[in-house]
């Protein structure tokens, strides 16, 4: 009863203590400054492993050779050898377990990415043989005439 003035202060301190207790329970133990400094390195350490553990989807051309030797040999000598198989067929992931088959996309859109002719001077696009999608066999699949693995214009 003596000095009641400090009572709200005790309540405030109690509230802060409560927050600190909850904080102790909620914040992971590995949260802190890791790295350069507080500005750039304040985080939960375990997050790095979370990111490193993400599964790899695109495997690269080398593994395709094991089973698809004929297509790979065709491709290796062609202008399309600069392409990854997965560029057109999508990510291998755990193929052949999962998925059992990869996409075979025969749409014109796929080929037009590089082969739609664009009139740009001093641009490497100009060195790629291109067509006008509106006039060049509209509606027809490109693969009907061109072999996507070994697209040899002379052999047509």
């Amino acid at each position: 009863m003596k000095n009641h003035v400090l009572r709200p202060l005790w309540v405030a301190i109690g509230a802060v203590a409560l927050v600190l207790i909850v904080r102790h329970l909620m914040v992971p133990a590995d949260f802190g400054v890791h790295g350069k400094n507080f500005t750039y390195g304040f985080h939960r350490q375990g997050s790095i492993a979370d990111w490193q553990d993400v599964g790899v989807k695109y495997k690269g051309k080398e593994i395709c050779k094991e089973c698809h030797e004929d297509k790979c040999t065709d491709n290796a000598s062609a202008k399309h050898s600069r392409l990854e198989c997965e560029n057109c067929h999508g990510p291998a992931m755990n193929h052949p377990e999962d998925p059992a088959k990869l996409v075979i996309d025969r749409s014109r859109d796929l080929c037009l990415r590089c082969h739609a002719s664009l009139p740009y001077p001093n641009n490497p696009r100009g060195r790629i043989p291109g067509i006008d999608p509106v006039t060049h066999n509209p509606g027809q699949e490109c693969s009907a005439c061109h072999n996507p693995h070994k697209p040899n214009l002379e052999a047509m």
Partner: protein
Amino acid sequence: MGTEEMVVHGAEWTVKQLFVYPNEFIYWSVQIVMYPYMTGLVAGAFVLSSLYHVFDQKDLKDMARFSLVFSLALLPTAMMPLMFHLQQPLRGFNVLFTPHFTSAIAAFGIVFSTYAMIVVSEIWFVYRQFFVEQINELRAKNDGLSRLKFYLYQLFSLGAHDLSDEAVNKDKRAVRLLAAIGIPVACFLHGYAGFIFGSVKANALWMSPLMPVIFIMSAVVSGIALCMLTYIAIMEWKKFSTVLARGRGDESVQLIRSVEMEVVKKASRYLIGFLVAAISLELLDLIFRGYTAMKSWDILRTVMYEEDFVKIFILQYLCGNLLPFVLLLLPRLTIRRTAFALALILFGVFMMRWNVVIGGQAFSLSFAGFMHYHIPVIPHSLETYKEGVLGALTVAGTPFVLFWLINKIVPSIRYN
């Protein structure tokens, strides 16, 4: 997983024009306009209350008590826009647990809590005598509501029942101290909101050292205006009910009217001062940008003088600043004219927040494109409710509901 759950936040209400980067949308929408508006009202209401408690402006006594309690009603409301906006609202408390102090938003946790504690403590000291008197009155009564109130007041009194002159004087001194400390904290509460925008170097419109000061000035303006307006509304209702009870010519009606006019005149003077400060800083910012004509000036000029011309120069500067300024300065000030000016000011401050938040996202980072904000009106999902007109209205209406509830426990308006 249906496309229902796959929402690109911002895509629904953003229309892009010309060249805009693919990931750019209006991410900070109406709730981010509401947040500084609400905290501004909080800061302003508190400063008004402190004008009486600290600077002994005796004419403001009635309004001071009211604006203190109203600022308590505004406090939880200030949290609402944030909870509505966060993509992970349940994790909102992370800002209290692991505050990254290099971020202005991290200050929110500490500043907000400190301010809340000051306001609640100050109200406790102001009302302690009332609590104890109520306890004594309710002790004898036996009905359910009275018993509930009895225990509630027992709790709120924190066991401090001494009503001697000495104790009451201690209360008064504590109020004075808290009101004094509270002023810089209230300024900080809103200044940091200005800093949140002013320190974003990536945004050509926001980046300015003037931003925190502009925000504080306009916050105080809005707080004073809201308290004055609500005070007027309540006094008018009081007058109306007195007229009904005792007839128009009665002496008490005249008394209410003249008291009301005195208080309003006094508060208007402070309002005008802060209004001038706020508009001067904004014009300074604009003139500076035009004069220095940095890389961003071309697109900013197009946004300010063409796209947003009406919103900035007509709605905010003309209707929200110049017009109320003139109305308040004209001789023979009436309550009606004051109320109209105050409403215009509140609208003007809202437009200022809108023009900063939405205006800053009206142009692309590429400086070669625009984004138009089409605020959702009729919601068809939780997101379009939260970040749309209805969400903003929910936030705007809550302080009044809370005030009505709080007023039942700590009455700040005398209805006698």
